[in-house]
Every structure is written in structure tokens, then in C-alpha cells.
């Protein structure tokens, strides 16, 4: 299943891209699984997610927790805590 992944702020800088389309294997069912899978793809991902607990995720533009099931998602985003306002 192909899914579009977006990165923002220093997560984007560490990974070195703003977005990509990936096809995680069948066993990757949650946001936490996806992060584990991404971290194994290269040291830029490992660096971006080194302190996993601070990274936030959104699925189809809605904030989600790490245990959210990603099946059917079209767009998943990873980013640091927000500093707007």
C-alpha cells in the first residue's frame, strides 16, 4: 500500500526531503510501526526520529497518537511539537 509521507521543520531538514511516497510492508500497521520501519531505512531517518517521543504525527491532516492504525491513510505527516500562534 503506497502512502505519501510529509516532513516538516527539523524533521524535514534531518531527513532531507519534504515528502515522499513509500510502500511499507504488510506488517506495518500503526504510526509506531511506520516510524520503526522508516528508522531502518537510513541514518538520516534514524537521526530525525532519534528522540521519537517528541515527534508528532498527523494522518490525513488530523493529529493522531502513535498507536493509530494507518491502513487506508493517504497522507501521513511527521513534525516536531508545533510553535505557531
Amino acid at each position: 500500500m503506497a502512502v505519501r509521507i510529509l516532513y516538516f521543520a527539523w524533521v524535514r531538514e534531518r531527513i532531507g526531503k519534504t515528502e515522499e511516497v513509500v510502500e511499507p510492508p504488510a506488517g506495518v500497521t500503526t504510526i509506531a510501526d511506520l516510524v520503526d520501519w522508516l528508522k531502518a531505512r537510513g541514518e538520516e531517518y534514524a537521526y530525525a526520529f532519534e528522540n521519537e517521543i517528541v515527534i508528532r504525527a498527523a494522518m490525513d491532516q488530523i493529529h493522531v497518537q502513535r498507536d493509530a492504525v494507518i491502513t487506508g491513510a493517504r497522507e501521513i505527516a511527521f513534525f516536531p511539537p508545533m510553535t505557531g500562534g
Partner: protein
Amino acid sequence: MDEPRTDDPASVERASIVPVVRIQAETFDAAAEAAALVRGRTDVGAVVTFTGLCRDEDGRLAALELEHYPGMAQAEIARVAGEAARRFPLQGLVAVHRYGVIRPGEEIVLVVAASPHRRAAFEAADFMMDWLKTRAPFWKREHPLGEPDAGGWVAAKAEDDRAADRWVR
């Protein structure tokens, strides 16, 4: 966020306003936004306008650069505004958030809330700002004066999370 119950008159009334939400690079006119909420009506008792500005941090800062997640920024602020409209008896609500390079003294964010009652107008604006700070997908990077490329990303503040937690119920 719960849907309003359509059999509850107060809830129906509260849900009936349509908040104005805009994400834009351009500056905004706070006075015009506030005036638009009141124009032609005589039932508004209180208007609270919050404007957030870029500070120079004791002269250290040349500019802030605000990165955002376009589709989600609009959607998330609209969700927060909808929640404000359900929680408080509002007659109008505007939220405008800028992105891009913003210099000290320039405006970043605007919230305007209109209500028959001052407490609701204050609380709705306060609630909007607390939730915008912690939920709207924007990230600030600092450009220090004299070394425009040396700045880092602004860290999120624990006090902002605590402020947002005041509204959890």
C-alpha cells in the same frame, strides 16, 4: 470533538455561526476583521481581539520564518474554531494565521471573538490562542540579526501545553 446535539436549542444556536479561518502570507487588518463581526447588528455586547506580534527578542532577532502544513493548518484551526463556537455563546469568530518571513513589530496571528457577554468573548479568544499554540501545524525558525542563516527552530514551551490543558474537560 463531539458533534452538537441537534435537539438542544442552545447547542444548535452555538453551532450556527461559521467561523472565519484564513491562513495567509499577507498581513491582516485586525480592525476591519473586528468591524465585520459587528457591522449591521445590534445584539453584540463584547468583542475581544487578540493580536500576536513578532518580537525582536532584545534586538537579537532579524525575523521569524514560519513554516506550515498548508491543508492541515486550515483544517486544524477550523476544528479548533468550531470547538470554540460550541463551547462559548459566540456571535462571530475570526482566526487568521500568517506564514513566511515575519519581521519584529509585524503581526503573526489574529483572533477576534464576538458575544453578547464579555466573559464568553474573553474565554473564546483565550481558548483559541491556547489551542492554536499547541495544535496548529506551524513551526517558527529564528533568523538572528547579523547571521541570518545561523538561527534554529523555536522549541515548544511546556507552559503552552499547560495553558492548553486548562481547557480539557
